[in-house]
């Protein structure tokens, strides 16, 4: 079992819900990322989703698109992201890191090469947004043989038949994208999420995390009533954008925000 599965299991057995935080590696500049990852953990984050910058982030809303652009202005590559993961791992051997990004940088690095390098950097899972399980048979096998858990997505439009297949392919957890739309779009309809979760929970043996649209403490609290954890991305990235010219303030504000989220879900 990978570090990601272990951590989520131990949370569940302690009756705790997971707080998953997303930042883009290298946003607003490369030096910020690793210290901020530690700060997230200090303030109660259980799993870090590290966004890999891509020139064409199709599924992202404007907030996260701009974060990708800020990181790319510093030429942050997939290789750089793995270096950041490795640096973080030197001081923290317990917090799972899930890389989240798009297929082309991984395809360019080569699946095998990527899996070996990611494993040795201490990466524990992947979410490749534009890689549904049907297209990922080769990738999943290579990742799993390197102890990296591939996480797949469920959407409001996913049929039961597909959901069964996705929950089977996913490892660690299943990520429920709670909105039709891009990251950070719209407002959460908790009744709708609750309905969908009831359906998906019957199909999944894995914990289900809910993301896209979780913006604040009350939102996160509502989500964990019906799910195993909440993913917060755009709200953190937006805060970072607001304070990108004052890095100390950026770190303080993000730390403060995350500790509020933690308090809200516990």
């Amino acid at each position, binding site marked *: 079992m990978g570090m990601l599965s272990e951590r989520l299991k131990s949370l569940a057995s302690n009756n705790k819900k997971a707080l998953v935080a997303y930042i883009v590696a290298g946003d607003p500049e490369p030096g910020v990322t690793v210290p901020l990852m530690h700060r997230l953990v200090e303030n109660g984050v259980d799993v870090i989703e590290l966004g890999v910058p891509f020139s*064409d982030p199709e599924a992202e809303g404007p907030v996260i*698109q701009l974060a990708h*652009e800020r990181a790319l202005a510093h030429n942050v590559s*997939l290789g750089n992201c793995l270096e950041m993961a490795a640096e973080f791992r030197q001081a923290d051997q317990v917090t799972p890191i899930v890389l989240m990004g798009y297929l082309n940088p991984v395809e360019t690095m080569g699946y095998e090469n990527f899996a070996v390098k990611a494993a040795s950097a201490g990466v524990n899972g992947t979410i490749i947004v*534009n890689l*549904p399980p049907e297209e990922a048979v080769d990738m999943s096998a290579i990742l799993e043989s390197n102890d990296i858990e591939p996480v797949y997505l469920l*959407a409001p*439009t996913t049929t039961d038949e597909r959901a069964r297949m996705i929950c089977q392919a996913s490892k660690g957890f299943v990520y429920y994208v709670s909105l*039709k739309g891009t990251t950070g779009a719209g407002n959460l309809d908790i009744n709708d999420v609750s309905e969908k979760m009831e359906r998906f929970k019957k199909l999944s043996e894995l914990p289900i995390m809910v993301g896209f649209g979780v913006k604040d403490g009350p939102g996160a609290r509502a989500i964990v009533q019906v799910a195993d954890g909440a993913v917060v991305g755009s709200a953190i990235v937006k805060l970072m954008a607001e304070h990108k010219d004052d890095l100390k303030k950026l770190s303080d504000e993000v730390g403060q925000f995350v500790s509020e989220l933690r308090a809200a879900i516990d």
Partner: protein
Amino acid sequence: MSNLDGNNESLFAYPDESGHFGQFGGKFVSETLMAALQDLESEYYRLRQDITFQEELQRDLSEYVGRASPLYFAKRLTTQAGGAKIYLKREDLNHTGAHKINNCIGQALLAKYMGKPRVIAETGAGQHGVASATVAARFGLECQVYMGSEDIKRQSLNVYRMKLLGAEVVPVHSGSKTLKDALNEAMRDWVTNVDDTHYIIGTVAGPHPYPMLVRNFQAIIGEETKRQFAEQHGGLPNAVVACVGGGSNAMGIFYPFLEDREVRLIGVEAAGYGLASGRHAAPLNEGAVGVLHGNRTYLMGDANGQIVETHSISAGLDYPGVGPEHAFLKDVRRAEYVAVDDTEALDAFRALNKLEGILPALESSHAVAYGLKLASKMDPDESIVINLSGRGDKDIPTVAKLDGISID
């Protein structure tokens, strides 16, 4: 019939059930879109057999678009080249001035039969946007067109034209602010509004079933060409030449000839400032295999897998990817892909004006440029067909500016 790799499968057997052309194509999209793609696929298969749908499509193609488009023997161009006989397939004479309308009519009808009141489209030069806005007006559909803010600056005529047609043009400020970013933004819109919206992709790219259905709507170009050539000349042409950006006009004219192995199929990419300059839009010549906009294909990317900015004098060819079936046809060596630079395309643009009284789009001028070179090396008893995919009215300001003339 066996192809050059010794595979006995007919080339008409592609894509396979999962939407792949060999290793290319597929459905590389976020989960939110999977259900919409499956719906589109099953609706398309159903409507393909539906007599009412087919009759409506045929009627619109003939009475609204003006098909069949002529196949024209270009006598003076032939004399100039001094070799094979050159025929032009006149897609420039279609309503709205390019082949784009063939696909847009088909997809707007799909939207209508699927009960979707709203369509969206991406556009680079504006031709596909204009064609989409046109059919939306024709069928009474709401229409939004995504266009990079850089392209909006370069193509003000088409932007205004879309507005006249009742469409809303939405500027895209992200990334390189060009066609690829417009495509990203249209996908984002579709993810959000998938219940009431059909996305009219303008080329043979995107996730399955788009490369297949756009090809099938464009295949009428090749079907007519085959019939017209047999009537006018007899037999089959020795070669068919078409420009390739995303590749829809090329796929449309190539497809009916795929199993006529004696016919050379030649796609012409944009070499921009020259292949050696790195500033071009020729992924089949210089790119690498990757994944973008829902499919695996040849792409212009850097060493880290980021998509790079492309250059071509013709905005319609200025795209870093190419339809997956072209990638496949390249790898199985059924089609050849060459590249023509900005200067050669401009020379051909001028030559066709002066020799035949035809104003070609800069996109199509790439095909004309290569066709002239090719014909000059062939025998007079041989023939080639060049797909003249669009007319060049939209390009007059660009060319005039190069001549130092302002016509604003």
